[in-house]
């Protein structure tokens, strides 16, 4: 009798484990292929060419991103070089207002990160506020606005936010052939407006490569305060929503950390109704 009582729950536990694993498989999504080894774009040194079209001011690039609200799910496939990537799934809401840009981001997978939430108020006056709900400790923590914070480095620069003109002064620095061989990219050099920019972002210079026709950033180089190249990002796929060209697949190479990441957006919507309550500490406290 004892033995039977023992074996039944054990068998049920085995069944439950198997069942749990099977049911927890990520849904196959047409726009989100399973992670594979991340293919780093072949490095190339673009030749300087004459620009066929006069480069618009960089503010036009920002205006092209005309959305007021933005919602997407995304897969983030992070890999140390030579290793297979680990996949994370997140849901992101963005809101653009006169005071700045707000971002709400919550991890959906893997389960050990599920519920971890990040809230950023990026204000035009640079008085940014960042909060994190850390589920493992069931607390909302204010995030110090230090450039070394991993959230800032890994997420805010993933092409989700619009370029922050309050941080950078952009000037045109010629043009180069597009890396996909189609057309020309304008080069814009972004220099910090003040020391606060480097303090907030950790970068001393940005180099933006902009598709002339679509007025969209296709590649970004990030330089540290000693102007050493530490990171690159490259758009692999664009989609047009409500007149705006938006990157929906992009790849980042953190040279300094030896880490690469591929980002794939899916279920992307823009200019939908988003409750302003999402962008509050109150909301993430009650996740």
């Amino acid at each position: 009798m004892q033995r039977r009582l023992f074996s039944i729950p054990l068998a049920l536990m085995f069944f439950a484990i198997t069942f749990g694993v099977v049911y927890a498989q990520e849904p196959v999504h047409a726009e989100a292929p399973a992670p594979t080894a991340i293919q780093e774009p072949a490095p190339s040194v673009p030749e300087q060419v004459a620009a066929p079209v006069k480069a618009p001011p960089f503010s036009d690039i920002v205006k092209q991103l005309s959305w007021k609200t933005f919602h997407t799910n995304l897969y983030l496939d992070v890999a140390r070089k030579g290793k297979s990537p680990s996949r994370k799934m997140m849901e992101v809401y963005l809101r653009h207002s006169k005071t700045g840009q707000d971002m709400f981001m919550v991890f959906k997978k893997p389960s050990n990160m599920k519920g971890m939430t990040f809230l950023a108020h990026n204000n035009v006056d640079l008085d940014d506020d960042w909060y994190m709900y850390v589920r493992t400790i069931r607390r909302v923590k204010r995030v110090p606005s230090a450039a070394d914070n991993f959230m800032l480095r890994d997420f805010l620069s993933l092409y989700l936010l619009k370029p922050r003109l309050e941080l950078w002064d952009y000037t045109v620095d010629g043009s180069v052939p597009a890396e996909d061989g189609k057309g020309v990219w304008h080069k814009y050099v972004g220099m910090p407006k003040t020391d606060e920019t480097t303090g907030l972002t950790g970068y001393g210079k940005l180099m933006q490569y902009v598709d002339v026709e679509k007025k969209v950033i296709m590649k970004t180089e990030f330089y540290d305060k000693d102007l050493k190249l530490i990171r690159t990002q490259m758009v692999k796929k664009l989609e047009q929503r409500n007149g705006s060209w938006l990157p929906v697949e992009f790849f980042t190479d953190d040279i300094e950390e030896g880490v690469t990441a591929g980002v794939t957006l899916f279920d992307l919507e823009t200019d939908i109704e988003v409750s302003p309550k999402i962008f509050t500490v109150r909301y993430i406290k009650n996740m």
Partner: protein
Amino acid sequence: MHRFRLIAAIGLFLVATTPAAAHAFELGNILSGYVMAFDYLDISRPLGEIGFAEGSYNDKPWVSHDRAGLRLQLRLAGDITNDVSFDTSINFQYDVAEAVRQPTSSATDGMSFFFKEGFISVRNILDYFDLKVGRQYVFWGKFEWGGALDIVSGWNYAAMSAEKENFRLAVDAVRLWMNFDPVTIELLVIPVFTPNKMPLELPEKAGPSTVVQNDAALPSTSFVNTEVGAKVAFPLGSDGEMALYYFRGFDRTFSMVVEGKPDDAYIPEDLVFTPTYNSLQVAGIDAEYIAGPVMLLFEGAYFHTEDEDGEDIFVKNKHMKLATGFEWEATSKLSVTGLYSYTRLLQYDRNREWHMVKNPGTPDPYVARTNQHKAMYRLRYYPIQELSLQLMQIFNIPDGDFMTLGFVSWEIVSGLKLYTGLVAFRGPNGTTFGRLEEQSRWFTELKYSF
């Protein structure tokens, strides 16, 4: 009864996970969890032999498996509507060590399930109110460790390890937040008391007397014993926030009531020990302020206990506790936390208490100091993305007792994580961590999250 609950829980789970239910509730999106193999080695004897521990544990094996087995945690979490969500976690565990601990133990003794957490959350009621009902963690105060106001969710001191949910206890509570921007008022009601889990092993004899240990005297689940609390939080300038607290409930840590205490004329045959949970009221304040990469933290609280005149040796004295410290993101790979706390017992005569507690079995008993100083630090280092190292130590400065928690976590492949490290206690007999020396463990957990 225990067996019935276990089978009932598994049955409920199986019903919930039938294909029909899975389809109806989109289970793939709401079900997650982990499977974990774990082994906790009792290392108190080797620590004693190398001189780390103050006690000698030669009666124990060199190293023994305190706990070893497999745990499955299933978590169901999702949104019912935009403003209503739920979150439930249940642990199923098989502990091989428990199943063979006693000659009379059977395999079923190793089986257990635990309703870890489970609540329903309702947001934006009449625009101003949020509600959370059910078993949940309530972490008050600003510090993760050692603060003055972390008085609600209890601790399981026998399960210290890498992850907080292993050793913190959720409470069955109703929480209501009233949001009057920028002020938030939180009301807390806890109808059922949840004490700390603390190992307690008394000697068989105390001097000439036989030791008798009674079951713990828990507060009854009557209406008058319902614990209540309130918190009012508001901004402190643009870079900080502050909160005021009030709590009326019970101390999570027991006081030991001893009856049959001998005096000069009479030595009792039995000494009866009864762990007793006493009521208390707490009023407190906390604050945090961001200064560049550093977060400055402060907590202060006054604890009003049942010992009105300070003369009851079986009840903690009234006391106040102050804690100050920082959290510093030194680099993207290193974070440092530091804390200093000061506790002062009020209306307390240590000499008198010593004389009152002293008996033939314990001729030199440990009694708490009037002024207590504690220091804590924690280092977290992430050399690469998959690897992290953490080291934390808490020192009770005048008593010389301390605890160490150090471990490595390594994500071997996506979803599979290995934790290994030690939790070690050291201190003179009777001190906070000295009492826990036998709970020193080397732990290893291999966890697959799905």
